[in-house]
């Protein structure tokens, strides 16, 4: 079951309230669909179908428009995600400095492939095109922490820091 599904009703109420606050904040602002989606994903961790429908109603948009935007951008997710988001940079600089070996080792350490989430929802593994830390390549970003100058051997120690 997804996390949101088995959450306590109290948490549901809290999240619903946050969503309403988010709507209130953007009401009347032009071009608010993407910031609202970003905010809703902050609240729920991903974008459940019911929430997308609520957003469509709030903005008086056809659900297809909302869905179209969600699937266009890499940032939005329709499935629950892990507590820790591991992003492996496969940018040019990382590529020429051995990012693929880092990526392979990470897949082994975490046990899932690109875009997948571990069953215990501990990790989601993703690849990105560039994190802009090319001077420290190869680079991996876990949540908001950027880890640079990596060797495949260091990865276990780094991954273990995240529960």
């Amino acid at each position, binding site marked *: 079951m997804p996390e949101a599904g088995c959450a306590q009703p109290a948490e549901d109420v809290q999240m619903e309230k946050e969503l309403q606050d988010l709507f209130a904040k953007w009401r009347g602002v032009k071009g608010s669909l*993407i910031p609202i989606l970003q905010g809703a994903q902050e609240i729920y961790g991903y974008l459940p179908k019911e929430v997308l429908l609520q957003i469509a109603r709030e903005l008086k948009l056809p659900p297809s428009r909302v869905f179209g935007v969600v699937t*266009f951008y890499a940032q939005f997710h329709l499935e629950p995600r892990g507590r820790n988001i591991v992003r492996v940079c496969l940018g040019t600089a990382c590529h020429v400095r051995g990012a693929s070996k880092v990526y392979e080792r990470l897949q082994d350490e975490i046990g899932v492939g690109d875009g997948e989430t571990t069953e215990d929802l501990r990790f989601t593994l993703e690849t990105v095109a560039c994190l802009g830390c090319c001077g420290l390549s190869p680079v991996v970003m876990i949540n*908001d922490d950027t880890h640079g100058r990596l060797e495949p051997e260091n990865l276990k120690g780094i991954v273990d820091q995240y529960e």
Partner: protein
Amino acid sequence: MQLVRAHVLVCGGKNCTASGSEQVREAFAKELEKKKLDQEIRLVETDCHGFCEMGPLVIVYPEGTFYVRVTAEDVPVIIEEHLVKGRPVDRLLYKAPVKEDEIPKYKELDFYRKQHRVALRNCGSINPEKIEEYIARGGYASLEKAIYDLTPEQVIEETKTSGLRGRGGGGFPTGLKWEFCRRSPGDLKYLICNADEGDPGAFMDRSILEGDPHSLIEGMAIAAYAIGCSEGYIYCRAEYPLAIKRLKIAIAQAEELGLLGDNILGTDFSFTLHIKEGAGAFVCGEETALMASIEGKRGMPRVRPPFPAQKGLWDKPSNINNVETYANVPMIIGKGADWFGSMGTEKSKGTKVFALTGKVNNTGLVEVPMGVTIRDIIFEIGGGIVGGKEYKGVQIGGPSGGCIPASLMDTPVDYESLIEAGAMMGSGGLVVMDETTCMVDLSRFFLNFTQSESCGKCTPCREGTKRMLEILTRICEGEGVPEDIETLERLGRVIKSTALCGLGNTAPNPVLSTLRYFRDEYEAHIYDKRCPAHACSALLVYTIDEEKCSGCGRCARACPAGAITGEKKEPHKIDPEKCIKCGSCIESCKRGAILRL
């Protein structure tokens, strides 16, 4: 177990003992025991440090505090002050003669000698979260000058005269762009900053956003005044959380001082600035796609004309420039077009920031006058190739750019010369490659990127890049056929001339430029099934040199596929059928007996 938190080293060298180090050591031993510190602080006697004229010497670790001419009477003071309270005893400390002169100045470092920092003028020296530091260095004086002393037309004229061209890739004259937008009919016009730095291998804009956000804000405010915009957007990629945080702080500070918002500095010029976070789509770096994204739509490009200057954001005339371009503006207005025009070449004025990465010794951000050579950047500033390997070429301009081979390293970096060499300035990523980088594999890497980032709106880009990627993948896997090269060239030409937007138009560049300069590598892959750089694993063959193999069995144990067999102390063999070409055996062999061909 008791942890030792400090070590006290007392010199037991001959000269120090002569000057009384024995007594000092005993005093420490006694005093530490008395204070019950002898468990957590360890006393060590050392050999001569060769600094005998200052003895007896005492060194306290972990800090490495160096005490000279210590006497037994000083010991209780050192223990009480330093070891208990953590305050080193000043009067006993060794004071080195001031050595400032021996430390190189920034300007004397190879890395900075040829640099000229205009857009990066404050990065790394001011606190980016404090507007007063920016203002103390003359910040916002150019905005003041523009709105009080110059008409909008004069600001545009000055920008045109300076020769500033767009730093985001295209190199369109900035002043001219502003003029188009200013002349466009309409009261409401938008000013946009493209901070969606999506090119892999580029981070110059991030550095400005994080290190000197006010230079961007001031540049945008000046542009807004010149064009007649009252509202602006900074579209920043979400992968840069720190940049967004610092921008928000900077905007709030500027608003508080009345440098943004209504009636800036008491005049009737008003300008409000918003931040829009990108949502992860490379194509949004294209201006029409970016505007669609701000409007809350799928970020797909549209046909131009109409150009943004006529019909842009929400169908209003809009001007869009990138971060580095705006960051140059305050310097042009402040120091004048002539000053700016004195740097660079005839057609490419000013400086450009490059992100120097890859197999180069000094990676980093480099700002140089236009027209310096690739050689200067890589070998003088960058300090040459890592590990002394052979320099093969540089990929310039990211997935839209091209590869420039070692033979052309005296090419000056300016807009025209780079186009001529089959690359482009792009946003300024420079990825240096050595002999171990396979050019076919690199082209495949870029195509893979553009292909997955293609928005799918136009056929040449959606289908064409996919077919090119398929061919490149096949070549890398050793299944290339002779006509592949020609097909790649034809596809490349067609996509270049027919795709809808910049992403598609430039997508074939990495392939076409490597075909131009490194055709022999493609041919080696296709005809000889060989990867000259030993990078494409499908084309590698691992063998064991029987002369060198001692039969230790390490490789057989390291092999995850069980492909290596052999008797103990006899030369081993690799079964090519089972070998998965992972390279584990090479790493495990201590005698260098395994060869990769």
